[in-house]
């Protein structure tokens, strides 16, 4: 019987020829990740195990990105605690403020994650790296601690859902719209414990950046992982970057899927997820009367160079609405630099937007753009839960960067065609 790409990668890491859904396996991990929120807790747990060293100092990666540059004394203490561990363990890949980025933009960019690998991270959006054809999933701090010690972890092999996207991708419709539409269709637990395999001619057309966006949000449907089979674009992306060995896996023709969804994108509208769940998606045409106070463009979902280019295309020659704060967060320092070289940063500042150093910042209501009671934001982030960006009575609407940029200009949720200078 055939296997899916997810099953093949897990089998290879469990030292088996074959695995099937439901099977409990112990698998080697290629990389483990923690951040300034989850790592301190993991380090405390790691200390209890009674060994001195992590399993491999090249394969434990810690990134300060959530509350950094340190937003307060407590965050500073957390980061310091993490940094001291990095030094003590002589971890090879650590990215300090100024050299860093949002973990899920940074790790692929740095060539630390790639095809065929198994990666776990104490951050739910670790599923992002599935875009490169890896099995990658989020865990908690204790799981991270155990994996830092052992270099392995346990998984229940997930059943797979196959999503086939076909048709002609309309103008402005991006990976973000495809994934929001998909979550709207299956719900926030529609893929609970399952692998989401994104396939079809439309996926082949998508840029790597858009693929990252899609896999990033697999968790928003409850998925264990999101995955896209590697192709020429994947090869091009990883070329010259990869610091570790990798391997291409593909699903067999006769692989078993719990469910197959076929999605025609030809008439798909741009998608907006209304508060307070990512599944509350509607076409943008049903959202255009919603006034906003803030527009946030960035995060591990849409903080990559392509996203910034799209935002700049919409903002160019326009001004941010007087009642709106537009805040733009490049995903990494490299992306920031690239945006400067291409003149995007200038466009943003000319338009009246704030451009921030890479950080998770407002995405999780951390700092740098918190909402007051009753305020409303449109954001290219991935979650619009109650209180996600600030006060429990504030609201977040999710969209792609073009919609967020257009909304910043008009002060209400808008379609990019409403503002673009032809």
């Amino acid at each position, binding site marked *: 019987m055939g296997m899916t790409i997810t099953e093949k990668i897990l089998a290879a890491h469990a030292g088996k020829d074959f695995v099937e859904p439901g099977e409990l396996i112990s698998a080697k991990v290629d990389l483990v990740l923690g951040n300034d929120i*989850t790592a301190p*807790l993991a380090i405390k747990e790691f200390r209890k195990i009674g060994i001195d060293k992590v399993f491999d100092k090249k394969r434990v990666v810690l990134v300060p990105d*959530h509350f950094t540059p340190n937003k307060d004394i407590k965050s500073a203490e957390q980061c310091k605690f993490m940094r001291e561990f990095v030094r003590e363990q002589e971890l090879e890949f650590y990215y300090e403020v100024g050299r860093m980025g949002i973990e899920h933009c940074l790790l692929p960019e740095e060539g630390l994650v790639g095809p065929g690998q198994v990666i776990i991270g*104490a951050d739910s959006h670790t599923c992002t790296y599935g875009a490169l054809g890896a099995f990658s999933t989020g865990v908690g701090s*204790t799981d991270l601690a155990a994996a830092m010690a052992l270099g392995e972890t346990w998984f229940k092999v997930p059943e797979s859902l196959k999503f086939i996207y076909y048709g002609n991708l309309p103008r402005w419709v991006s990976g973000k719209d495809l994934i929001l539409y998909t979550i709207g269709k299956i719900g926030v637990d529609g893929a609970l*414990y399952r692998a989401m395999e994104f396939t079809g001619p439309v996926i082949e057309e998508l840029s790597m950046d858009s693929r990252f966006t899609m896999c990033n949000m697999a*968790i928003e449907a409850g998925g264990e992982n999101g995955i896209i089979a590697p192709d020429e674009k994947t090869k091009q992306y990883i070329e010259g970057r990869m610091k570790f060995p990798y391997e291409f896996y593909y699903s067999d023709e006769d692989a078993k899927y719990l469910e197959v969804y076929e999605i025609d994108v030809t008439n798909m509208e741009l998608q907006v997820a209304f508060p307070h769940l990512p599944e509350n998606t509607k076409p943008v045409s049903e959202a255009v009367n919603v006034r906003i106070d803030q527009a946030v463009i960035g995060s591990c979902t849409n903080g990559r160079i392509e996203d910034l280019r799209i935002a700049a295309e919409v903002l160019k020659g326009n001004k941010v609405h007087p009642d709106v704060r537009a805040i733009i967060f490049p995903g990494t320092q490299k992306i920031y630099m690239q945006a400067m070289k291409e003149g995007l940063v200038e466009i943003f500042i000319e338009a009246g937007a704030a451009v921030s150093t890479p950080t998770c910042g407002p995405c999780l209501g951390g700092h740098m753009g918190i909402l007051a009671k009753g305020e409303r934001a449109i954001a290219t982030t991935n979650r619009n*839960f109650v209180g996600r960006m600030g006060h429990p009575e504030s609201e977040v609407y999710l969209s792609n960067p073009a919609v967020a940029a257009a909304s910043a200009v008009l002060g209400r949720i808008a379609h990019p065609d409403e503002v673009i200078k032809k």
Partner: protein
Amino acid sequence: MKFSGKVWKFGDDIDTDLIIPARYLNTSDPEELAKHCMEDADASFYSKVQKGDIIVAGKNFGCGSSREHAPVAIKACGVSCVIAKTFARIFYRNAFNIGLSIFECEEAVEKIDEGDVLEVDASTGIIKNLTKNEEYRATPVPEFMQEIISAGGLINYVKKKVSRNA
């Protein structure tokens, strides 16, 4: 082990931002986290909850972030166990790893009301509703998870494994 306590009931898709908002994640101190447990779902939760009380919720409990601070906060504020229709995957792992007992039982969630008093037998998964005089049966805990629990959480489990390998 048996748990008994009064029920606090919540709906579907209770996410980790509701359980412990990110603005409090600049610490991992359980006592600090406990003070803000469920704050954005019910601001007075911490002042009302008593030791041993039980959270009962709908589907997909604990969805969202991987923050282990969520089960830690629940445990630290005195809640003895959580019963839900389903749990989000990372929350499910985290709860076992840190030793917070959780049970999946659709029937229980449908029949139990806030304020009911329950007695839960962790080893059999039998949930007794003392207020309504009913009994429900939770989905059995997978064997591997039982091993983790009986080892006293994942870290102790790993400890044993490491010392065996040494």
